[in-house]
């Protein structure tokens, strides 16, 4: 690693999940109802990448697949320390499930050339699958560890990490490798105002499906390449607390009846 660490960080722009509304009629998230932001888990991946770069030298490349407006998340990545940013954007990428997304990302990483480490968030807050990271690693045929909550050591061509799958596992992985990271890994720093402003002027490389054609069949991207379809999404409604005031001599009896009916007490 005389040239320093080559790190790729996968970034996704997501709607602010605490604010977003659900369109019950079409069974989909109404993306216009909330501002977009960078998937919070990805910021921890980026922070880890920047810390490794600060320690060992190297280069951090942020890659995102999404519509044109996802550029703003890549600008954020540049402000927070990424050196390059690439946006995969094309109507042919649209409607991708996790495997079709992973194909596009893996193809982009192949096109990029050599790398030592790929970092991404453990999952995205909108999709919540946690599949894309490991799928990308499988497509690239590199080892991967999910839910990394600590990077213990980087030595030669190995990295030692703690994977938190409820129980913690100490894993030694040969590089190049892919890690998906948890929030516990680090506390992402705020970017400086100066870096945010200069990131606005930086170039973001745009790759379409054809740009990846040497590495993957463009028909296997987007909705055409997807093996799953979302038939319907159901969001459980929220029920308000109810209050009942019971009075009189038979109040206790009434209370028991209510508890029984609700299944909270045995008859």
């Amino acid at each position, binding site marked *: 690693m005389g040239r320093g660490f080559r790190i790729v960080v996968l970034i996704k722009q997501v709607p*602010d999940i605490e604010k977003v509304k659900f369109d019950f009629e079409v069974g989909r998230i109404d993306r216009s109802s909330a501002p977009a932001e960078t998937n919070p888990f990805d910021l921890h991946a980026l922070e880890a990448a920047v810390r490794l770069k600060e320690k060992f030298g190297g280069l951090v490349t942020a890659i995102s697949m999404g519509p044109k407006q996802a550029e703003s998340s890549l600008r954020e990545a540049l402000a927070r320390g990424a050196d390059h940013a690439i946006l995969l954007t094309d109507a042919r990428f649209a409607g991708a499930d996790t495997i079709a997304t992973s194909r596009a990302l893996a193809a982009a990483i192949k096109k990029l050339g050599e790398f030592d480490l790929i970092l991404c968030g453990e999952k995205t807050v909108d999709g919540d699958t946690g599949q894309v990271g490991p799928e990308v690693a499988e497509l690239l045929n590199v080892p991967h560890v999910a839910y990394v909550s600590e990077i213990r050591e980087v030595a030669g061509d190995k990295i030692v990490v703690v994977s938190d799958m409820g129980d913690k596992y100490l894993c030694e992985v040969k590089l190049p490798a892919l890690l998906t990271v948890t929030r516990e890994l680090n506390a992402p720093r*705020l970017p400086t*105002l100066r870096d945010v402003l200069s990131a606005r002027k930086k170039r973001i490389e745009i790759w379409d499906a054809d740009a990846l054609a040497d590495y993957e069949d463009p028909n296997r991207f987007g909705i055409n390449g997807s093996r799953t379809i979302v038939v319907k999404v159901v969001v459980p409604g929220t029920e308000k607390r109810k209050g009942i005031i019971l009075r009189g001599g038979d109040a206790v009896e009434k209370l028991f009846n209510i508890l029984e009916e609700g299944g909270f007490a045995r008859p």
Partner: protein
Amino acid sequence: MREEIVSELRSIVGEDWVITGEDRIQGYLYDETPPPMLPEASKDVAVVKPRNAEEVSEILKLANRYGLPVFPRGGGTGLVGACVPTMSGIILSLERMNIIKVDRENLMAEAEAGATLADLLKAAEDVGLFFPPHPGDEGAHIGGLLACNAGGARAVKTGVIRNYVKGVEVVLPTGEILTLGGKLVKNNAGYDLMHLIIGSEGTLGVITKAWIRLYPREAVNATIVIPFEDREMALKTVPAIFQEGLMPLAIEYVEKSLVEKTAQHLGLTWPCRDGDHQLILILAEASEAALYEACEKIVNICEKMGSLEPLVAESRGEQERILKIRSEIYSFLKPNLVDILDTTVPPAQLLELIKAVEELGRKYNTYLPVFGHVGDGNLHIHLMREDGWTKEDYDRLRDEVYRKAIELGGTITGEHGIGYIRRRSLEKYIDKKALELMRAIKRIFDPNNILNPDKVFP
């Protein structure tokens, strides 16, 4: 309290909405005033929870008949003991009156007094509108916010609560229900009684409903933290920001050590490690281009004023974390706090006030943590517990702060109000004639002195 009064109250609001008994009224006796300043609350009280202005009116008429004091109560987040029942009487809790309707066409919220600030913020947001001020605790009730004309952090750009209120429904101490103003942007019909009610701390009437101006949501916002080695440069940066034509929603000053300890106390991390003195700016602009243009200007100002590297938070989560830590400084200090002052001076005189406070800290050999809404010249100075100090020691120190503020053209309170604990200071520092007029107004509104007696006036 006499049983017949309690049963009359029950006949007004219904069986379930009158509460008596020491253990059950406990949560209604005090507010967020630092405990050493709190007056002792009477336990001989009934908590009454009306559902509408008519019931409030009946309760006040009854109170007049029996000469019974009534203490209106909102969220209990006040800091000057304004809602504490200092004598036997009725605690009028408006918590059941909590409906908010938003009129999107007129950009106006119609909010009942017992709705919380959190409810209002959410109701506005649900229809894509925005309520700009943020007076600290979101559990505060609308009635209380108006009664004490709350201020808070986001008052720089568009002002304190008073600036947003366009109408109130108020029940006078004598029982009449009055609507003053409405969904009106302009209203010049006679004396402005509405603004007399706002800020009267529950002494002139019980606010039961308000029409509150909302704003279109600014498209983009950002929170900037600017660190400085030196306090003087931090404070001198504030007028420089205004002179550049920038109008942030908020400009706050914090000491890094204090805000870091607060963050730690909350299990969070304060994002800016540089400098001992920091400004927090909240920017809200109509477009991304406008926001970044403002940011460019700030970078230039910072360079000129010799700040360290400013940081910026753009995501909602990161911005909320900063505001939360800033808002919780008070709760962090509270266990050892004797009093929190909200002294306010003309913004450009703030530096002088802070220097005087530093000097007083040395003179009295005590640490006086300060932070505050520096964009408004509003400084929170904290009197901390010191071993061996008596009440007189704190009184003397507080009085010196007040004297300095007045000398600088300021006021003893910019946002918390007088309540119970600042009555003597009001008497001392306000014009005699003004106080005489205030007392005369109180007599006209409340001839039997039943509504929040013992407050504002000594």
